[in-house]
């Protein structure tokens, strides 16, 4: 029997802390990869929704779904691999040099953007498993962020007191160009007709200032003063932050993952988006209690059904068979065209939440499937070996 178990315990726990093995050298990169993959999953719909919208602007007509909407039945959902077998792609377990990697995007034409551990991203061909390096100059510095626009890959690397920003055509055939140095961090980039816009943040104590720049190869970044306080969230679409007490500038309003009960009792309004290229302002119409919105479409809940509609309020589609615990949180992520939406629910406490349902819904055909993994840019990690669902293969 011990006389001073509490003293012994405090001393032993401190000793265990002191002698604990250090983290592996690649630990920060592993965290960055996970974070980037999740952020990509969140922003997949936001960033890529630009594609559909640009298509509307550029070509006049894009039909996301048949005129007669097909009701999706969540109660009868099969695994996504059975629903869309033509889109399942098996990729190599590891890349050259036995490197682990993550799949960041499906770029179409059987090409994937993948991120090997501790290496710059490369293009991977799904049928041959051949890889092709990007032409980009990564300067042996840590990759800080990257974005996928309609025609370009853009990325930023850590540099003295800020970030260096680069861009390269998505097909990887042309050389990368240096777009300039930004004296900020957390860079997001949008592009339209070869003109690039970036928002980046600077922290002052607990306050975060967002700044916007216009970028072009061979020119110094030009601050866009009217963009101060805005953050790019979806291609050229930016949202204005919410004023914080005592803060000169603003932290963009976080979009919390609300419990369904909260969605039902306190419906949220979608934010007003500002298009930095055209100057257009737009607020998605509310057709039901909103779970998530992009400038292209929204998903919400109404009277026991999941509902989706286009941002202008048209093309409303309701589902059947969707059930969930009202205490759970719900969230939705859109594919780049806005055609596919991943709807997931999870237990309420953020720190130890567990996924309770996870569906991929094709708004064009009404098909719905269950899945385990998460959606990145036009690709779903199936969480089985290295299989993915390439959404660009689904007609």
């Amino acid at each position, binding site marked *: *029997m*011990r006389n001073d*178990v*509490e003293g*012994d*315990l*405090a*001393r*032993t*726990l*401190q*000793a*265990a*802390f*002191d*002698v*604990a*093995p*250090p*983290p*592996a050298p690649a*630990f*920060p990169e*592993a*965290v*960055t990869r*996970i*974070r980037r993959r*999740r*952020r990509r999953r*969140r922003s997949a719909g936001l960033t890529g929704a630009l594609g559909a919208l640009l298509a509307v602007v550029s070509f006049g007509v894009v039909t996301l779904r048949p005129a007669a909407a097909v009701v999706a039945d969540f109660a009868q959902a099969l695994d996504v691999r059975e629903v869309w077998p033509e889109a399942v792609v098996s990729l190599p377990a590891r890349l050259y040099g036995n490197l682990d990697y993550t799949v960041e995007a499906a770029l179409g034409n059987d090409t994937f953007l993948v991120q090997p551990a501790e290496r710059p991203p490369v293009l991977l061909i799904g049928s041959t498993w051949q890889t092709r390096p990007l032409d980009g100059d990564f300067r042996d510095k*840590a990759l*800080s962020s990257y974005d996928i626009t309609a025609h370009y890959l853009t990325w930023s690397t*850590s540099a003295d007191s800020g970030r260096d920003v680069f861009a390269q055509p998505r097909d990887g055939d042309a050389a990368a160009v240096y777009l300039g140095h930004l004296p900020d*961090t*957390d860079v997001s980039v949008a592009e339209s007709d070869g003109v690039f816009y970036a928002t980046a*943040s600077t*922290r002052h104590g*607990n*306050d*975060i200032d967002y700044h916007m720049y216009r970028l072009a190869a061979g020119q110094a970044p030009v601050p866009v003063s009217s963009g101060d306080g805005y953050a790019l969230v979806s291609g050229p679409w930016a949202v204005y932050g919410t004023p*914080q007490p005592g803060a000169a500038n603003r*932290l*963009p309003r*976080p979009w919390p993952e609300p419990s369904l009960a909260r969605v039902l009792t306190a419906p949220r309004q979608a934010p007003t988006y500002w298009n930095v290229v055209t100057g257009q302002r737009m607020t998605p119409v509310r057709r039901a209690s909103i779970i998530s919105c992009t400038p292209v479409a929204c998903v919400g809940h109404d009277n026991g059904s999941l509902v989706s509609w286009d941002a202008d309020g048209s093309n409303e589609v309701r589902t059947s068979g969707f059930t969930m615990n009202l205490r759970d949180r719900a969230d939705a992520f859109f594919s780049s065209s806005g055609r596919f939406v991943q709807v997931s629910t999870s237990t309420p*406490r*953020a*720190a*130890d939440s*567990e996924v309770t349902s996870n569906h991929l819904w094709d708004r064009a055909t009404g098909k719905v499937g269950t899945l385990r993994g998460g959606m990145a840019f036009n690709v779903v990690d199936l969480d089985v070996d290295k299989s993915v669902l390439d959404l660009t293969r689904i007609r």
Partner: protein
Amino acid sequence: MADDFESFVRARMSALVRYGYVLSGNPHDAADLAQEALARLGERWPRVRATGDPEGYVRTTMARLHISWWRRRRREHPVRTVPEQGYHDAGLLAADGDTGLWRAVAELPPRQRVVLVLRYFEQLTDEEIAHELGVSRVTVRSQASRALEKLRQVDNFRIAELSGR
């Protein structure tokens, strides 16, 4: 304080993985706990950073994760095998730790273990622990009491080893 998330990870990863080791008792779970908690912090970085205590957020997340992961693993592996001897026993002893007590702590149910870590390593009050874990103060006290009762029965290995017994 670190200016951005990557800087925060690099600055605090060693301490957080060590904290994971205290929570879980093995280096693999320690790294997994720290990695997952930091990834979750990354998803909420601007908001948590604005609170001024991102490390507190990570530590709380790690403690909760340890409990919930164990619940899941218990369903998958009903019998938990504890190694005869941790491979840092010598270092632990040299650092003035008690190897017998450390092994006994490893065999405690995770909620009891987490309560002890928060109370005797983090030096939190029972009220603070209750808030961190989302349980009542009574639950904290009962968990701590049961755990301490078990640990009191453990021989004092340090004394035994030092005396050559």
